[in-house]
């Protein structure tokens, strides 16, 4: 399956040109948000920066938070269904998923409260399809078997957490000067703690080497890792800072997580969103 083509088709048809889709909502809020939020700003989290919102992607704090909420909806429902599926072994896997699930639920509630506090209507929860159109069966609903379902359950969790880390990072600039920045960073770090644990539960390192998705990850998840091979940080090629192992490609790519653009994050999430 050509996943990129699939994603492109999906985002173009379902999101860009479809009915009031997530993407359209992002777009609308992206442009509306500036004025809406400026008008509604004086309370709570949403204190406005005294600088322009103009960002490369045309998003702003509201767009950033709506994207974050969409990703949190996805994670929250995923872990709820995972815990209900009977696929997760008891012990460490169940303990880990329960802890993560608790956080994702809290993130959803927190973001909804933050947006509403800013006078903005939060995006609605999309309809999710964690089989991605039949490609996966993580909850063993279609008879793929417990073992395979569990492997997919772990693989999807890894993809969602690593995506979350990159997506929040990609939105940090849009939150610069906003009181939303610190909480977003606080969530970002929690997603990274989750990602590390899920990766290690799968037998991988907690950090991302080069742009490797890691053993056992479906090719469909490669989009989550593309770009992680970057070694230019702040204009400095960090592999040139020394000759020993800390400055090799592996360590130099592991030591820095890379951002995802809002569009790329939406494209990944869209795999699991049913078009309306």
């Amino acid at each position, binding site marked *: 399956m050509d996943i990129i083509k699939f994603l492109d088709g999906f985002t173009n048809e379902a999101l860009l040109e479809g009915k009031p889709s997530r993407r359209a909502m992002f777009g609308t809020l992206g442009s509306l948000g500036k004025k809406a939020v400026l008008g509604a700003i004086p309370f709570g989290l949403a204190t406005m920066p005294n600088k322009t919102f103009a960002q490369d992607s045309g998003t702003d704090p509201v767009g950033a938070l709506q994207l974050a909420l969409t990703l949190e909806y996805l994670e929250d429902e995923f872990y709820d269904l995972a815990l209900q599926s009977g696929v997760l072994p008891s012990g460490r896997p169940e303990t880990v998923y329960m802890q993560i699930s608790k956080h994702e639920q809290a993130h959803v509630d927190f973001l909804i409260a933050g947006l509403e506090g800013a006078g903005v209507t939060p995006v609605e929860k999309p309809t999710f399809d964690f089989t991605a159109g039949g490609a996966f069966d993580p909850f063993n609903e279609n008879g793929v078997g417990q073992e395979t379902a569990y492997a997919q359950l772990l693989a999807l969790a890894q993809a969602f957490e690593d995506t979350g880390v990159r997506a929040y990072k990609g939105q940090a600039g849009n939150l610069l000067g906003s009181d939303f920045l610190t909480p977003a960073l*606080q969530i970002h770090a*929690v997603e990274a703690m989750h990602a590390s644990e899920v990766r290690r539960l799968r037998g991988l390192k907690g950090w991302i080497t080069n742009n490797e998705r890691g053993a056992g990850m479906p090719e469909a998840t490669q989009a989550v890792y593309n770009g992680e091979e970057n070694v230019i940080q702040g204009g400095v090629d960090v592999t040139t800072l020394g000759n020993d192992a800390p400055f090799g490609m592996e360590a130099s790519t592991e030591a820095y997580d890379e951002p995802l653009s809002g569009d790329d994050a939406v494209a990944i999430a869209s795999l699991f969103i049913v078009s309306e």
Partner: protein
Amino acid sequence: MEKSIVKVKPVKKATNRRQFIKLGGMGVVGASLLVACSNDDNGMAMMPDPDPNPNPDIFDLGQGDLGVLNYAYALEQLEADFYTKVVNSFYGNITDEERQVLTDLYYHEVNHRDFFKTAITAAVDGNTDLVLPTLEFDYGDLDFGNREQVLTTASVLEDTGVAAYNGAGRLISDPGYLLLAGKIVSVEARHASAIRTLLNPGSADFAGDDYVTTDNGLAAALDPSAILAAVGDTGFITTPFTANNLP
């Protein structure tokens, strides 16, 4: 009023102060790192002095983005130095997994440290008077041959690093520096998670309730003054410096 100077202090246990990062089964040494956010406010949250650096013999981190970069550089120097000592004399009976994790953390922190030195030097056009000097360290009674002491200290350092970057983000005005901090903090959080699991395998500690607030799912975020007070109390950093222009 002069603000705190990070300097040698005897390693001592936190007793009557609120622990901002609670650890189960604390080792002896890590405890003194846990004393930020205490009630015994010693004035560090006050406004900057009229003279931004009243004691020119002691390096001040500076203000604005430069101050934040120097602050991060200080923390990365500490982490890098600590892991260098860890990997140069691993504790006995170390598992393969522990060796791999600690070696990777050593690589990453050394990379971060040297990156900050280069980036800050470039940012100030090579005016090294504005770049935090190479710090010196003393771990006192910390026994690098003791697994629990090493992992507990590592855990505190990583937890502290995450809280530090989370709290410093809002102090950054340049989007490029903010992104860099973001690239690094999530790796520190991945470290924190891994070390926590090494200390308590199979538990929920990887993002434990002691570190992630249960009702909102937010990890810790602390101002430089709180972080530096905690670091100062460890006595690990023996080179004095001030942070008179950071909150």
